[in-house]
């Protein structure tokens, strides 16, 4: 009997090979998005087996199924609400106990579980011998040994999936929590069965367990039921009793019970050497997290990552710019031949092609960055980097993993913001995002170069360095301020697994890279494109006006805003317009000045000296360093925080900070007698 809609879910810890299996089964036939309203990645795909189309979803990696994290809630909600036909639980054989802790909870949830035992080769290297048949009996679920990276066990797994599905046998729950706990669970289960009359999608036993555990989500669910309050009252009596008997809180009691059950099963089915063998991972770690070598190695790797993401991408970026330039030329020629009006040519060339070009030009950096990050993550090194940097980061209220986005920010804030995905905790992610824009990105450099060559010819390097330094100092300050105000009282823990080192698969990394890059193109791309279009409109109206001149709408807006910048030393409309354009992309500032003063790059330095003084030039550079980040960055911020409010907050607070600091610089400078 062939089902019409066959759905499988993959569940398991992070680092257990789950995504590798998903990628190998679906290849490019996968789609990455977000769970609605959440910042958790949703990966779905499909593949064919024996002419049957199987839909497969890669649930987020989790260690448990509590109500404490988005990933766990998303996972258990999916299993309960969507009732996948089979849940394949990938388990790392070399790390059985902790992996089985989740298995136990999947069984509790009532999922139809098949256990795929992965990484057996690694377990063998540790001289662990696992009797999977016995383990299967003790747990009450079928087990297949696989290696996710190749096809080992793949056929057995899939045919077992079909077999289990057609046998219609439900997973038996053989979990034993100890007599004491068992009897109380059953007691509450009976109460629930009698008091909750409507069909509930949850198993009553699972509800009983969760209620005793004080699971927030479930308690809220039960409160909505008619007899909810009585059930909760009975539960609290049970809870109190258990706490007296065990001398600990219910969460520890259950964790203990589950781990106890798992430990018992493992003791019976696994033969391991008396003393743990020294693994390759251990040997590598002795060097990589070594007291003296650790930091130098880390800095070297960061430098390499930086170089690859930005320098190696440059030829490609150059190529793209060249191609788009070519395209602009050709289109201009064609349209002129068709006698198109000037404004139409400008629309196509400046706005549309220019707009799309400004999106595409990011791609080499973005793709390379994602490739680098997925390499770091999958190899296991990212965890070590966080381990090494945490002490420093923690002092500013950040997490060890925040270091990487901040470093990337020096190249480009867009991938830097995206890199905050590696932070599991929302608070850490948000805080890191809030201070990443202080890292002076490479797009601001052309502005610095322009001004220092015109105003500080003998101190160019020093001045530029001072700007970078200012950025870092303000980042640290902002971090500390946020830590004690907006984020006060919310600390996040640094409780992080250090997985064994693994060689990432090229296929997996490339898929990662493509999926995430694609998302950037679609989301950020749309916004950038629209912004360019708007600016173009404002620069070309009223009709007939010279592009972005004083009498165009944008010029009028510039003149209107300019007084705000007067106390900062550059209250001229050209500066205002340049800064507005700079919100689209910082590198545009230089080109804008060129257009507004109607000079080529040669004469620009001279033209600027008419309008700026050295002091106001420095003040302007400070403003450029600090103010609202470019639209692609803002778009990424919106995406990574799933909130327009935070995006506007960043745009606003940075503008304010920029104004204040520039003010201090300019006015302070005047007071000190600089010009």
């Amino acid at each position, binding site marked *: 009997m062939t089902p019409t809609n066959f759905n499988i879910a993959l569940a398991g810890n992070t680092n257990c090979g789950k995504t590798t299996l998903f990628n190998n089964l679906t290849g490019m036939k996968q789609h990455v998005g977000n769970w609605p309203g959440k910042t958790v990645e949703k990966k779905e795909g499909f593949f064919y087996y024996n002419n049957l189309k199987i839909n497969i979803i890669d649930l987020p990696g989790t260690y448990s199924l509590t109500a404490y994290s988005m990933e766990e809630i998303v996972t258990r909600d999916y299993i309960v609400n969507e009732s996948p036909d089979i849940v394949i639980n990938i388990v790392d054989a070399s790390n059985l106990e902790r992996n089985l802790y989740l298995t136990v909870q999947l069984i509790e949830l009532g999922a139809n579980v098949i256990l795929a035992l992965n990484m057996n080769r690694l377990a063998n290297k540790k001289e662990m011998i696992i009797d999977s048949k016995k383990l299967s009996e003790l747990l009450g679920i079928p087990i297949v040994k696989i290696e996710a990276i190749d096809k080992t066990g793949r056929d057995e797994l899939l045919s077992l999936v079909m077999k289990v599905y057609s046998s219609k046998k439900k997973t038996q729950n053989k979990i034993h929590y100890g007599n004491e706990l068992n009897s109380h669970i059953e007691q509450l289960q009976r109460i629930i069965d009698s008091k909750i009359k409507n069909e509930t999608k949850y198993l009553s036993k699972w509800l009983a367990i969760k209620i005793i555990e004080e699971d927030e989500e479930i308690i809220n669910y039960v409160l909505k039921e008619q007899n909810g309050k009585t059930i909760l009252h009975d539960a609290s009596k049970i809870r109190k009793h258990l706490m007296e008997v065990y001398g600990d809180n219910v969460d520890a009691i259950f964790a203990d019970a589950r781990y106890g059950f798992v430990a018992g099963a493992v003791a019976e089915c696994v033969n391991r050497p008396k003393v743990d063998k020294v693994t390759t991972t251990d040997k590598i770690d002795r060097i990589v997290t070594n007291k003296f070598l650790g930091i130098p190695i880390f800095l070297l790797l960061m430098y390499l990552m930086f170089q690859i993401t930005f320098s190696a991408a440059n030829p490609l970026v150059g190529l793209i710019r060249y191609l788009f330039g070519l395209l602009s030329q050709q289109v201009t020629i064609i349209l002129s031949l068709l006698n198109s009006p000037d404004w139409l040519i400008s629309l196509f060339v400046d706005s549309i092609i220019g707009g799309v070009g400004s999106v595409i030009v990011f791609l080499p950096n973005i793709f390379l960055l994602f490739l680098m990050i997925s390499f770091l993550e999958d190899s296991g090194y990212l965890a070590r980097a966080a381990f090494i940097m*945490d002490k420093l980061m923690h002092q500013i209220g950040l997490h060890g993993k925040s270091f990487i986005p901040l470093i990337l920010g020096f190249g480009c804030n867009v991938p830097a913001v995206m890199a905050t995905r590696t932070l599991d905790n929302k608070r850490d992610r948000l805080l890191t995002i809030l201070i990443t824009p202080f890292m002076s990105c490479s797009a601001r450099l052309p502005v610095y170069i322009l001004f220092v060559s015109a105003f500080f010819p003998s101190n160019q390097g020093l001045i530029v360095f001072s700007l970078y330094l200012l950025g870092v100092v303000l980042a640290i300050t902002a971090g500390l301020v946020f830590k004690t105000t907006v984020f006060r009282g919310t600390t996040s823990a640094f409780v992080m697994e250090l997985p064994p080192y693994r060689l990432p698969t090229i296929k997996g990394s490339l898929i990662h890279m493509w999926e995430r890059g694609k998302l950037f193109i679609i989301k950020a791309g749309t916004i950038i494109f629209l912004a360019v279009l708007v600016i173009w409109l404002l620069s070309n109206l009223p009709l007939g006006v010279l592009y972005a001149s004083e009498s165009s709408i944008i010029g009028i807006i510039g003149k209107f805003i300019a007084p705000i910048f007067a106390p900062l030393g550059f209250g001229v409309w050209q500066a205002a317009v340049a800064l507005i354009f700079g919100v689209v992309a910082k590198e545009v500032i230089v080109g804008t000045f060129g257009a507004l003063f109607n000079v080529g790059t040669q004469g620009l330095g001279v033209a600027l000296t008419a309008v700026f003084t050295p002091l106001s030039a420095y003040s302007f550079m400070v403003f450029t360093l600090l103010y609202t980040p470019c639209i692609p960055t803002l778009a990424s911020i919106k995406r990574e925080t799933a909130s327009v409010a935070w995006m506007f907050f960043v745009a606003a607070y940075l503008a304010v900070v920029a104004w204040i600091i520039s003010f201090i610089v300019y006015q302070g400078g005047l007071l000190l007698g600089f010009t």
Partner: protein
Amino acid sequence: MNESIENYLRIIYVLVEKQSDKSSGIKITDIAKEMDVSKPSVSSMIKKLTDQKYLKSKPYSKVFLTSKGFNEARKITHNHRVIEVFLKDVLNYDMTKVHVEAHRLEHAFSDESIKRLDDFLNNPNLSPFGRFIPHKNDDVVLPEKSTLDNLKMGEFARIVSAPGKGIIRRRLLDMGVVRGARVVIERVAPLGDPIQIKVKGYSLSLRKEEAKKIDVVKE
């Protein structure tokens, strides 16, 4: 030895364990409450114990264990808790019954039997209730309550309890930092923090400020 004398010594030992300042004595009212017995009965027993040199006391005030009393109390406590481990782990008794049954059996086991039981159970350090099992040469009633951050590299210990509350606690529990779990510090980060421990067969890193809140007992 007289059963009731043994019982009193054990209770007094428990009360001393609970004290933060081990040098201040034990109040008679506390003993009465703990044993659920009237004050006069306690008083007469205290007199007996003082006569037999297990306790030092002044009338109507606090009592202190002498070193003879301390040694005896420690032995009885040891025996009681080792038997508890046996009842729970080997005979699968419910937690509710373990204490009462141990209470019944402790007076019946000879020194030799206790020694063999200890060997059989591999000299456990922790009772099922998370209490430290004192051994013959332990100088203090409780060793400095050791915390995870105090362990030296390579030193094995067992978790007594996971810290505090909220998400961090939950996370630690889920990661296997549960009572009785065997842990060892593998390394420390180059800047001195965080630390990397091995628990449940894998490597976990956490900050010293969290490790400080996790009570352990060295093996």
